[in-house]
């Protein structure tokens, strides 16, 4: 089937099976910040925005982005600059595999007026897993993002 959507503001057309995962489509389209982690909705490495909502691309099927506005980290470079800087400054990155997902979640959380307390941020990160950092530095980085 044919799927048309915008990814980071540009129109993309896919010729794909209806059961194709959005995760694979966006990666084929060059958005490699979207990582294939668990493939089961548990790790958040594949997080992206669909019509403004942060969701797991590994669970979404191609037809679900028909006519939708998809935004990945590639399309939010300016908006996430302060968050990414804070991650670097606080050493919230080791292998980096989980980082795009965490940065998008932090951006989603902070841009909706999320509270800067450690407890609230920990709860907000419930959909993202990191195997390297132990989370402490990630939480600290988000608390200290310069606004």
């Amino acid at each position, binding site marked *: 089937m044919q799927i048309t959507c915008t990814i980071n503001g540009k129109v993309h057309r896919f010729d794909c099976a*209806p059961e194709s*995962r959005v995760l694979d489509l966006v990666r084929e389209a060059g958005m490699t910040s979207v990582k294939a982690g668990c493939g089961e909705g548990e790790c958040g490495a594949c997080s992206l925005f669909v019509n403004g909502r942060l969701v*797991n691309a590994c*669970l979404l099927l191609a*037809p*679900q982005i028909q006519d939708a506005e998809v935004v990945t980290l590639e399309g939010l470079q300016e908006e996430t600059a302060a968050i990414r800087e804070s991650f670097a400054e606080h050493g919230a990155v080791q292998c980096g595999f989980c980082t795009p997902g965490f940065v998008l979640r932090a951006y*989603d959380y902070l841009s909706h007026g999320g509270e800067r307390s450690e407890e609230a941020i920990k709860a907000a990160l*419930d959909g993202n897993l990191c195997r390297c950092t132990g989370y402490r530095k990630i939480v600290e980085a988000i608390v200290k993002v310069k606004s």
Partner: protein
Amino acid sequence: MNYLRATNLGEATALLARYPEALLLCGSTDAALQLRHAAATATLIDIHALEELKGVSVEDGHMRIGALVTLNELLRSDVVRASLPLLAACAETFGSHQIRNLATVGGNIANASPAADLTAALVALEATVTLASQEGERSVPLEAFYCGYKCTKLDHELITAVTVPLQTGEWYYRKAGMRERLNIAKVSIALTQGHGGFRISGASLGPSPVRFRTLEALLDGGVYDDAAIKEALESDTDPSGGHRSTKAYRLRVAFNMIKEALSQPEER
């Protein structure tokens, strides 16, 4: 694979009559995984655009929750927080932020998992499901909607909404799992105590969400002693062992939760 998108309820019921074996698609948090095991010939009917299945409204002491309402919409809804705090508390333990942005109320009910949190909470709240087909609509108490493991009474129908009496009195909701959030419940317990007496239900304690009628009668009769509660719990539940935890463990956790519910309920 055959993909069809319904744009209104009439279209959806007509498609369902024509393709009774079709997999409905809402948030696809369960369906995406189900699809990997489905036959290559399966038909997908995408119902996520049906306006008739959206939104929350209150009328005559009842709340109507559309089948397409997501868990995050439920969690953020002021009316839900004010009038059905148990449901908001349940939504808070459900999946993760990203999952709650996708997962729908109708999907949780229809998927018929014994571990479905929201469904168990809705059973304690005496919710009714509304089902639609080409022949029209009918309503079924949620508890009677299940017929065993992964078995529902859906008959070429789709769920359009659940209707829940507004909650009064004391309530309790608790979920136990490996992680505090984003996990499948090993056990969860929902309890309300209002004018009608106790209403108690749980997830992962039987083939489908269970209502604890023996225990309710016991507590309504003013009997609170541990041995009697344990015995009632055993007769009300049928937890499978499973690979995630043993039957004895689930029963013990359920017992501890009931004790906590009785000593420290939330109030509304």
